[in-house]
């Protein structure tokens, strides 16, 4: 059985062509416009709130949860599931992430210290990349209408979330909340690679710097906990 499983390649799990995938992105833009404007307003609001005080961070997470819920329903369940039988499961995962964000927002996490400069820089870079996604995502594609946007498509939405969560959390909370966004980025990266779409390299780069920032954030968190215990 193991020999049988190893004979599968990535392509065996991607039941559609690049043409169909890109056309799906395009149709999302056609169907959802001008919702993009509202989603970008929500995105800006999230980023500004994430840079604010504890109370404002809760609003950032609630905004993110709305984005995840919409992407789960509109992009994954209603569109992507037409061509990918696994998309129903992805939609469930995105819905779960939305609930997780609401739960953490309601719990009102303890006032966390600002992330170290390295983590903050990476977080803002990732968030900026997510917001700039419509500009570079159509590069190499046949139409600008195939661009992807936060709140409409899954990739930039997951990337934005990674950036914002790096600003808001450290320790186990950060790893818990970023698990699904990271897994999605990996799945999407592999899908794009199989389809021959170069954008997989952008996701790969984001994952690398994101991981680096998360590890740094975790070390700072551990140092803080150790220092707190020692001071007692």
């Amino acid at each position, binding site marked *: 059985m193991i020999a*049988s499983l190893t*004979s*599968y390649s990535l*392509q*065996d799990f*991607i*039941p*559609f*062509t*690049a*043409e*169909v995938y890109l*056309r*799906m992105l395009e*149709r999302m833009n056609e169907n959802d416009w001008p919702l993009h404007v509202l989603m970008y307003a929500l995105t800006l609001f999230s980023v500004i709130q994430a840079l604010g005080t504890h109370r404002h961070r809760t609003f950032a997470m609630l905004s993110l949860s709305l984005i995840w819920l919409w992407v789960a329903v509109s992009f994954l369940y209603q*569109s992507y599931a*037409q*061509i*990918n*039988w696994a998309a129903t499961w992805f939609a469930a995962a995105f819905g779960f992430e939305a609930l997780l964000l609401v739960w953490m927002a309601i719990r009102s996490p303890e006032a966390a210290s600002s992330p170290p400069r390295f983590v903050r820089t990476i977080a803002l870079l990732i968030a900026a990349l997510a917001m700039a996604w419509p500009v570079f995502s159509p590069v190499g594609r046949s139409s600008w209408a195939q661009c992807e946007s936060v709140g409409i498509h899954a990739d930039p939405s997951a990337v934005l979330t990674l950036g914002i969560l790096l600003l808001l959390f450290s320790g186990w909370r950060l790893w818990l909340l970023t698990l699904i966004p990271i897994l999605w980025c990996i799945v999407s990266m592999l899908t794009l690679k199989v389809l021959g779409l170069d954008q997989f390299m952008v996701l790969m780069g984001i994952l690398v710097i994101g991981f680096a920032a998360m590890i740094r954030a975790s070390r700072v968190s551990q140092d803080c906990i150790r220092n707190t215990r020692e001071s007692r």
Partner: protein
Amino acid sequence: MSTQLTRRQTIRLLSGTLALPFLTPPPALGNASPVRVRPVPASGESLPVIGMGTWRTFNVGSDPGLRQARTQVLATFFERGGRVIDCSPMYGSSADVLGDALNRLSVPSDLFAAEKVWTGDGSATAEQVTEQRQEWDIERFDLMQIHNLLSWREHLRNLRDMKESGKIRYIGITTSHGRRHGDLEQIMASEPLDFVQLTYNITHREAEQRLLPLAQDKGIAVIANRPFDGGYLIKRLKRDYQVPDWAAQECDCQSWAEFLLKFIVSQPSITCAIPATTRISHMQENMDAIRGELPDAQLRRRMARHIESL
């Protein structure tokens, strides 16, 4: 991969149309060469040696433009003598898109509809067959196959019942990529089957060792999937090489598609190959292999050596 006619194709088409009164009809349209067929051992029914697969190519979701494009590909398939279409629940919206295309074209009376059961729930055979039939919007499938041997014992039992009651005509099993050939051989040797589907192409000929002879001995029809190795083989050949002159002279191979497909269907045990495509032009090339000369054993060896040398 667009199925829209290019400007060159459009000009060519218009020129051909204007010149038509002065030309003899091309074989594909004027049927000067007969469609090559092979018998299904279980019944003697003849099937054209080139069918159509739908993995990835027909999974286009609800997009109207892409559905229309696939309808045109299917129309070309029928016009050129195709009958056998293969699909699976694993292929996303392919069955639904097929059903839409068949409704637009009207279902040909000689359609040979081949579907698959793909569920680990051995009790859901009939349910899935019904679901797929509703997607295709046809009365009955000709062939139901157990996809990648998933829960094959239960499904085989249920499919036999369905065959006895006339709900399907043939039953079969499938694998691909050379997987589970040992299991395939055991099942072929011990169970009554009408069809087996496996990967056989010029770069993957493992089935020649045991499975194809066994199929011939047991009277099992063989459908060859992945004739172009998932597309990689033919793309590389088209990009980097020309079809050798001797292939054109000795077995009418004008394109790499024809070269690769004729190699496959010239194997006596193969009933049908099922290439998949999204393009009309590629469908035309594929269907050229349904007519004309086939390579003999010596030429087949030369073809295989040629590909190995590239």
